[in-house]
């Protein structure tokens, strides 16, 4: 029995001999950025770490190295770091525009293969070098948290569509759907801005959708979305409507599969009105105005996508669920000829605390 106990203790302690990762003894990379290489390597990577200061603030530190595969970069970065760099705490990954234009297929593989990386991290493309962007000084919470919080709250409340790694991968591997990422830009050393959405064709970035179209884009791609938009009425007054909930539904015409209608329902509150008094007539005018605006902007977007042969709305993926034995090859031609119409229904629920 004694021997058995000794064996048991040995077994327990020996199987405890695995690689430890103590928080104080590692360097957690919170963000990373990919830039084109200055030399002859494939790319240049910047890791952003944060050093926690005694006064609870965070000091940003970046390590930049070049390589052909990401692993090589990690080794290169470790040569510049006093403690091992780990990627498990990553919250953000940025791609410089030209890198994204060349295609981000190879980068995605790492993010799937390495199980230590979570799927809640954000991808984004940047205007200008990611190294420069990560080197700014945006706030006491640190640059990594600053930018990822910026994206996150704009997804939750603003007009940026859902784009964390989970939904990005879902769309990326979905046939009949193209991906998109927020596009961010450094304004100055203190500020960054989400300047638009980078739309992809396959794994290659195609063009940037300006930020004023983002809300309409979100209406088309997200199942539920919140957002803000303004309408100007004939009498010159303006109203700002906050959409609380919006849903969209794709509907294929059963008789004529080449015809698709998209229904967009928006429920919202009036937050601001510059005219004299809100009466039911004006509310109706606002509603109507909004509906027209949504329909006009959205149809424009869809037409634009058809012209550029990209499908961020996932119309192809939708058709696949409607038709048995769906053929994606044929679909590529059908997509551009598809006639789409958009019907929107706006409902104003509340008009605020004043009468």
């Amino acid at each position, binding site marked *: 029995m004694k021997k058995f106990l000794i064996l048991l203790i040995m*077994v327990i302690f*020996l*199987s405890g001999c*695995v690689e430890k990762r103590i928080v104080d003894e590692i360097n957690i990379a919170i963000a990373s950025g990919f830039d084109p290489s200055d030399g002859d390597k494939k790319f240049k990577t910047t890791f952003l770490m944060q050093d926690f200061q005694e006064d609870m603030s965070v000091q940003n530190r970046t390590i930049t190295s070049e390589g052909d595969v990401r692993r090589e970069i990690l080794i290169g970065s470790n040569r510049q770091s006093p403690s091992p760099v780990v990627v498990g705490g990553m919250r953000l990954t940025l791609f410089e525009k030209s890198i994204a234009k060349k295609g981000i297929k190879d980068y995605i593989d790492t993010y799937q293969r390495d199980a230590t990386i*979570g799927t809640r991290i954000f991808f984004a493309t940047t205007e200008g070098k990611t190294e420069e962007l990560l080197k700014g000084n945006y706030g006491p919470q640190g640059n990594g948290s600053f930018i990822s919080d910026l994206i996150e709250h704009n997804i939750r409340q603003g007009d940026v569509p*859902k784009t964390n790694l989970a939904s990005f991968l*879902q769309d*990326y*591997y979905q046939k009949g759907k193209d991906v998109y990422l927020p596009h961010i830009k450094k304004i100055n050393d203190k500020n960054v801005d989400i300047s638009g959405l980078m739309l992809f064709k396959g794994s290659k970035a195609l063009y940037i959708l300006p930020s004023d179209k983002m809300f309409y884009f979100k209406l088309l791609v997200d199942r539920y979305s919140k957002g803000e938009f303004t309408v100007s009425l004939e009498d010159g007054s303006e109203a700002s409507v906050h959409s609380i909930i919006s849903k969209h539904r794709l509907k294929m015409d059963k008789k004529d599969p080449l015809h698709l209608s998209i229904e967009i329902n928006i429920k919202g509150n009036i937050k601001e009105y510059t005219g004299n008094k809100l009466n039911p007539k004006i509310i109706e005018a606002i509603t109507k105005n909004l509906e027209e605006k949504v329909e006009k902007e959205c149809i424009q977007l869809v037409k634009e996508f058809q012209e550029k042969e990209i499908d961020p709305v996932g119309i192809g993926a939708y058709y696949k669920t409607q038709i048995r034995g769906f053929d994606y090859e044929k679909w590529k031609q059908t997509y551009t000829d598809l006639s789409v119409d958009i019907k929107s229904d706006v409902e104003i629920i509340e008009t605020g605390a004043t009468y």
Partner: protein
Amino acid sequence: MDSHVVPETSKVSPFLLFYIIISIQIGVGVLGYQRVIAEHAGYDGWISILITGIAVHIVMWMMFKMAETTDGDIIKVHQYVIGNIAGKIISFLLIIYFMLYILVILLNYIQVIQIWMFPDLSTFWYTLAFMALCTYVVFGGFRTVVGVSFFGMVLPAYLLITLVFTFRYSNFTQILPILDHSLIDLLTASYHMSLTFVGFEIILFVYPFIKEPQKSKKWAHLAVLVTTLFYTFLAILTFAYFSEGQLQKTVWATLSMWQIVQLPFVERFEYIAVANWNLIILPNICLSLWVASRLIKRTIHLKQRKGTVIIAAIIPLITLLFKTGEQVQKLSEITQKITFGFVFVYIPLLFIATMIAKRVKKQ
């Protein structure tokens, strides 16, 4: 020689068969069966799960019929059909079957730990530690083993609730259109699903240990119904969360789904899930180890304790042979064929043979 007479004190209540079956069925397979069935039947794969579920019910009915006819376990069935010595030889082969079972579960689970948590975890030492624990449980007797399977199912059940977090990213229309695949595709996926379902053949071994076995039938069928529904439900959740191309790139889909879980006090939930899986495979191994050692006792009359220790010692040594993930994959594939052959081919044949033998003996 009356070693198959089980004293009343080591028998368990009929309803406990419910926990025994669920806990032995649910193992490492749950972590990644979705990709395999989707590979063959696409997002119609959930229908294949139901087909396999029905097949399992039928086989289970046969097993109960056989056990009732002979009023004993599979060794008695073998003796009934092909005589004493030949019966024992075949029964002895089943020891290898259950050892294979233990090996595949442990190797697959350790592979998961190595990829998700500790890349340099030693397979040998971990297996040895785990087998020591299981030996300890089996030394406690059958009732202890059943107790472990009860907790092995109840305690980790909360994990299911955490999958609610995936809803925000799920798109349930992805499983449309239903029946987009041929019957052949569906059946192929059903075949691949069988490895996740097996384990219920344990009925043929634990039957003598159940009080009023007649009453346990409904519990056994209920258990299979629950696992079938659970697998189907989980598959639909998975199909909604991953797009089809993405799922093909995801080896452990269930674990990957936990990557999205965010709680204020845990940043990465999948690590908790991996650690918790210990508790899920514990009854798997304990029950298999118990059955294997019982088989040793019944066939070559070695004391069950000795048999347990022998098997528990051999398993870690065999794991030394497996060095790469690919080898583990190969072993799993072979095991898949063997278990399918045993459960869905051999048992029905044995059933027919038993029924014929019964007729002959009556005349």
